[in-house]
């Protein structure tokens, strides 16, 4: 049997081996993330059928929970692991030709550490261990945002670091408060002890956790860092940050809210927060001229939509939220990768510089268009079933509040359509102003392959959503059945 520990250990080990390979040859450094994440992809796919029958538990060092650190590979954990490995693998191919300047080995080390942290967060069953992996994720993303070292990227990295560090301080304080009361760090053990969230001593840690993870997930009042950080990082890193890092923040948040605290009374608040985040994100994206900033604000909006769907807390709602999460991970990674290459060629992030790109770079422009249509939610792409499920789930509840909120969500979708179609229009229907380099340029294979694979996933899952809904339904039931989770970890 494959051990889920390998999913964390192999990338972590290989990350620190990168400089040693650098002694042999500078050329093989860039293949290390490729190898590590390919391994992760294979292992997580092999674990998949077994996990769907029964969650896989690993006690590190042989100490049984609640005394030792344990890993819990449930359906939701393995779903995230596959997504992280898939997107990470594709982006590592993209980086072959994209990352050429500065210290490449540092990029590859930090990139592997970022993905290790993300995998650790989704697999661990211990709250302090979750914090440690979360910090690995955060610290490596702070430094990757500053990778170019120019004026804007350093400024955004500083902003990101200050807010992120404050957020993680709050998480640590929450962990301290919980440990002081229950004397355990195991999530299942803690969840077994927490009966209701109405006493102040339980409520304060819950608020601290939501605020702390909310910073990384970019929930509305805590999202000031995101547009700067995502727009000034290298495009390959923007794809990973937008496609994985904020989703992992959201995962940590819902894991804490649903499993650890079972806090159903706070869900209405989270739902409102989600809709506000959605509206703010989409409205800000609408008035951006910089393409990467626009995509970053769109990510904020999407996170709000996911938070709304997950807070419905019905099986159908959570399934819809997770579907939206998968579609956002694939779609936004594709958009950042495609936009990144077009920026690389045109040398400007301004939307007006993309005019006429549809003729010059047909494949990349087509992929961008498909990604944009998918995020907006047009059939037959993957975004459509996700949004449809969310709207249906909210209407099933038959409450006035949900109907009003759905109105705002559909409004936000219209805004989203407006700004994405503006870019698509610039790509295809506007003549290029400077007519000097009109020749067609075909991107190198290492850029085209990840873009094509992501496009393929978007179209295939969009046409046949049944491919992933089974996994999502069992993930939703894992989140909702708190008692089962506790029983499965500590029989």
């Amino acid at each position, binding site marked *: 049997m494959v051990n889920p520990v390998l999913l964390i250990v192999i990338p972590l080990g290989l990350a620190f081996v990168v400089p040693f390979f650098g002694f042999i040859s500078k050329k093989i450094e860039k293949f290390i993330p490729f190898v590590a994440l390919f391994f992760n992809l294979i292992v997580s796919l092999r674990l998949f059928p077994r996990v769907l029958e029964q969650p896989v538990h690993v006690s590190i060092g042989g100490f049984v929970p609640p005394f030792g650190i344990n890993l819990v590979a449930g359906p939701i954990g393995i779903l995230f692991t596959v997504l992280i490995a898939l997107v990470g693998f594709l982006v590592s191919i993209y980086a072959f030709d994209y990352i050429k300047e500065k210290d490449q080995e540092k990029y590859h080390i930090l990139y592997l550490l970022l993905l290790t942290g993300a995998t650790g967060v989704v697999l661990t069953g211990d709250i302090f261990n979750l914090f440690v992996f979360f910090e690995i994720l955060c610290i490596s993303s702070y430094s990757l945002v*500053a990778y170019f070292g*120019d004026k804007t990227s350093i*400024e955004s990295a500083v902003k990101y670091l200050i807010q992120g560090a404050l957020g993680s301080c709050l998480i640590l304080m929450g962990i301290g408060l919980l440990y002081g009361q229950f004397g355990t*760090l195991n999530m299942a053990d803690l969840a077994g002890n927490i009966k209701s969230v109405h006493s102040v001593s339980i409520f304060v840690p819950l608020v601290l956790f939501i605020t702390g993870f909310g910073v990384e997930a970019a929930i509305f009042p805590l999202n000031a860092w995101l547009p700067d950080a995502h727009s*000034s990082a290298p495009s390959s890193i923007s794809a990973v940050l937008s496609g994985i890092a904020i989703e992992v923040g959201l995962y940590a948040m819902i894991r804490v809210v649903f499993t650890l605290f079972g806090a159903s009374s706070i869900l209405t608040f989270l739902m409102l927060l989600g809709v506000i985040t959605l509206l703010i994100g989409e409205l800000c994206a609408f008035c951006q001229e910089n393409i990467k900033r626009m995509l970053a604000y769109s990510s904020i909006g999407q996170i709000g939509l996911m938070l709304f769907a997950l807070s419905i807390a019905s099986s159908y709602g959570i399934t819809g939220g997770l579907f939206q999460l998968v579609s956002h991970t694939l779609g936004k990674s594709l958009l950042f990768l495609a936009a990144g290459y077009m920026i690389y060629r045109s040398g400007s992030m301004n939307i007006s510089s993309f005019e006429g790109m549809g003729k010059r770079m047909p494949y990349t422009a087509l992929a961008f268009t498909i990604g944009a249509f998918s995020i907006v939610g047009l059939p037959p792409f993957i975004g459509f079933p996700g949004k449809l499920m969310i709207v249906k789930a909210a209407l099933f509840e038959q409450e006035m509040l949900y109907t009003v909120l759905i109105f705002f969500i559909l409004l936000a979708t219209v805004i989203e359509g407006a700004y994405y179609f503006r870019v698509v229009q610039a790509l295809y229907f506007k003549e290029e102003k400077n007519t000097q380099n009109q020749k067609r340029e075909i991107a190198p294979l290492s850029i085209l392959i990840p873009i094509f694979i992501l496009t393929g996933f978007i179209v295939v899952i969009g046409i046949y959503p049944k491919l992933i809904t089974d996994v999502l339904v069992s993930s939703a039931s894992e989140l909702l059945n708190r008692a089962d989770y506790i029983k499965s970890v500590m029989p």
Partner: protein
Amino acid sequence: MTFLSEYIYYIGAFGLIFIGLYIVLVKKNLIKVIIGLSIIDTGINLFLITIGYIRDGTAPVFSKPGLKANEMVDPVPQALVLTAIVIGVAILALAISLAVKLYKHHGTLNLRKINEQKW
């Protein structure tokens, strides 16, 4: 007086956390903000240690016969603090190196004047 002697560490810990929070929120200089972050970190570490602390307690090793569990200090928070200190140092080092770079680019560390990126 007994109240004070019993809760003095908690008061100290939360005092440090709020002082740090104040510095981070109010000060304009990046170096001061970083110092504030480090003070919050220290406060939280003190808080974690206090949770497991027992007055006149000893290390949790059964060296003497007849040692009871309530005479021993809880070792888990100390392990947590060790990890938290390492993480804090990593963040501090990164923050300071970014501050150096920021000064090279902007010629100032005043955060109110560094505002190229806006909504």
